[in-house]
């Protein structure tokens, strides 16, 4: 396994500003969070490690794809143990392509208890996830369980506290109609496979996802019928129109798709996936697309 040690320090500090031009030579300076030797009463049990988009496969062994789907740049990681005892906490910080992507990977799994860590945090069964700026954080008690709750939250708060703020929840997320929406189901994404994890629409890239295309999926209760709304934003109207045409032809053909109703307004395409009354479905589409952008 290829890995590389990162700098370690006695305090959790931010060494450099986030991608700000260095006054000396005008070159961007990499922002490097330091996972300290001690944090919240826990001692590092070894040096920190850093992984890139290639080596991450070895570290999280088969689960790297979710992070790569959000443009993972690197992951810094360190393990901690208490002064006495054999418990262990693993801290992983993933630098994503943008704050929107950090929010996105955070939103991919939001079941759990909302906690005030970073720009959004969730705790469940010994695991804290949070996002802040372009960073997605994971603080994980390998022993699991609620007993680790306070330790995990303390470590998470200390780590998140040293990261720079930056970026808001993507504006596309705020366009999701909020009535009868299950807020814990909202996921921001750029990948067909991430979409399929929330609602399976087929093995291909039906909506033409790519780096310039962003989307949100959420689950709605339409008169007792559970449906998903997918809202996709394209870089220009031509791209949106082209995908709309393909979706119409594809879904209209005898094929392998779930029941789906699609609509478009400018660069926005919306699809309601699942069976509900026509009025309810069209009402949701109207609300999602109303006004365009």
């Amino acid at each position: 396994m290829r890995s590389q040690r990162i700098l370690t320090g006695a305090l959790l500090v931010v060494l450099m500003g986030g991608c700000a031009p260095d006054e000396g030579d005008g070159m961007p300076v990499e922002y490097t969070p330091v996972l300290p030797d001690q944090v919240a009463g826990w001692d590092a049990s070894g040096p920190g490690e850093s992984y890139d988009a290639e080596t991450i496969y070895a570290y999280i062994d088969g689960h790297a794809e979710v992070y790569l789907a959000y443009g993972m740049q690197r992951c810094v990681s360190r393990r901690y143990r208490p002064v006495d005892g054999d418990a262990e906490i693993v801290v992983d910080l993933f630098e994503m392509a943008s704050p929107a992507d950090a929010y996105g990977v955070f939103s991919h799994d939001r079941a759990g208890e909302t906690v005030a860590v970073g720009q959004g945090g969730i705790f469940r069964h010994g695991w804290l996830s949070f996002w802040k700026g372009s960073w997605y954080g994971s603080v994980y008690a390998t022993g699991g369980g609620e007993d680790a709750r306070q330790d995990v939250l303390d470590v998470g708060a200390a780590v998140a506290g040293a990261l720079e703020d930056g970026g808001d929840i993507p504006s596309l997320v705020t366009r999701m109609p909020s009535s009868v929406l299950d807020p814990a189901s909202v996921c921001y994404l750029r990948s067909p496979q991430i979409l399929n994890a929330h609602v399976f629409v087929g093995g291909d890239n039906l909506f033409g996802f790519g780096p310039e295309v962003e989307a949100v999926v959420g689950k709605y209760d339409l008169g007792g019928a559970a449906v998903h709304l997918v809202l996709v934003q394209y870089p220009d109207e031509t791209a949106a129109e082209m995908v709309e045409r393909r979706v119409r032809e594809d879904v209209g053909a005898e094929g392998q798709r779930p029941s789906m109703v699609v609509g478009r307004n400018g660069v926005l395409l919306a699809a309601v996936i699942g069976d509900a009354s026509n009025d309810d479905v069209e009402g949701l589409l109207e609300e999602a697309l109303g006004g365009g952008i």
Partner: protein
Amino acid sequence: MKKNRGSVNRRDFFKIGTGAAAAGLLGTGSAESSETPAAPTSRVVLIREKAVVGEDGMLDGEMLHSMLNRAMTSLFEVTSSGKAWKQVVSPKDVVGIKTNVWHNLRTPPELEEAIRSEVIKVGVKPEDVAVDDRGVLENPVFQRATTLINTRPLRTHNWSGLGTCIKNMIMFVPRPPEYHADSCAPLGAMWKLPELEGKVKLNILVMLTPQFHGVGPHSFSKEYIWPYRGLIVGVDPVAVDATGARILQAKRDLYFGEPRPISPPAHHIEIAGSRYGLGVSDPAAIDLVRLGWQDEALI
């Protein structure tokens, strides 16, 4: 604003292609199976013993070995485990035991050793038997292997839906991401590689403490494993995995108190059969033999 309602409804989706795969594995049955039940073509043995995993989580290795041999005897419908193992290996074989060492939930070393000892009992030279996972491509025994035995625990997986026996062969591929498209749909293609084709004679899916849900980058929480205390043993990897998938799906529904489909759908199992001819996933085509402890079997 333009709208378009597609003519394909959910029922149609489930009848064909990948939708059919997902539905079949989740126990709802495909259209084909409900209309014309297939004659069972693959025998699969599910064996469980309550005492094999203690309340403290400790594994009884001797009991596990005994379970394996009972399953083998039943699988091959012979009168002794010795005869059963001779259906899998011969003294002249070079045998690679493909295990799984994922640190959170690995194949128990006790099971690896049980398989190894049975293979040697048949007459295979000890130097012609190796157990390996991530080093199979460099392992000299695996490089000249004539027979492979495949074993791993069943667990959920972020990208393929499930970590299965079919997926366990990914270490024979230099670049695993090449098989990651469409929720790892092409995994069955690996089994057509020269290193694997025709060599995998036995699949043992470890169901001692399966993992039915995963969270976070490490995809593991003790909250989401449970002591099922079983093994699923078969020659057909698709039938073995499909049987495990049905159990895991049932556990998810039970735990969450509502239907909670394996996500993403583990359609690589059905596709390994329908596209790559590795076996059958339709429950109607699987001759499921149940041995041992029957409580809370979920299938």
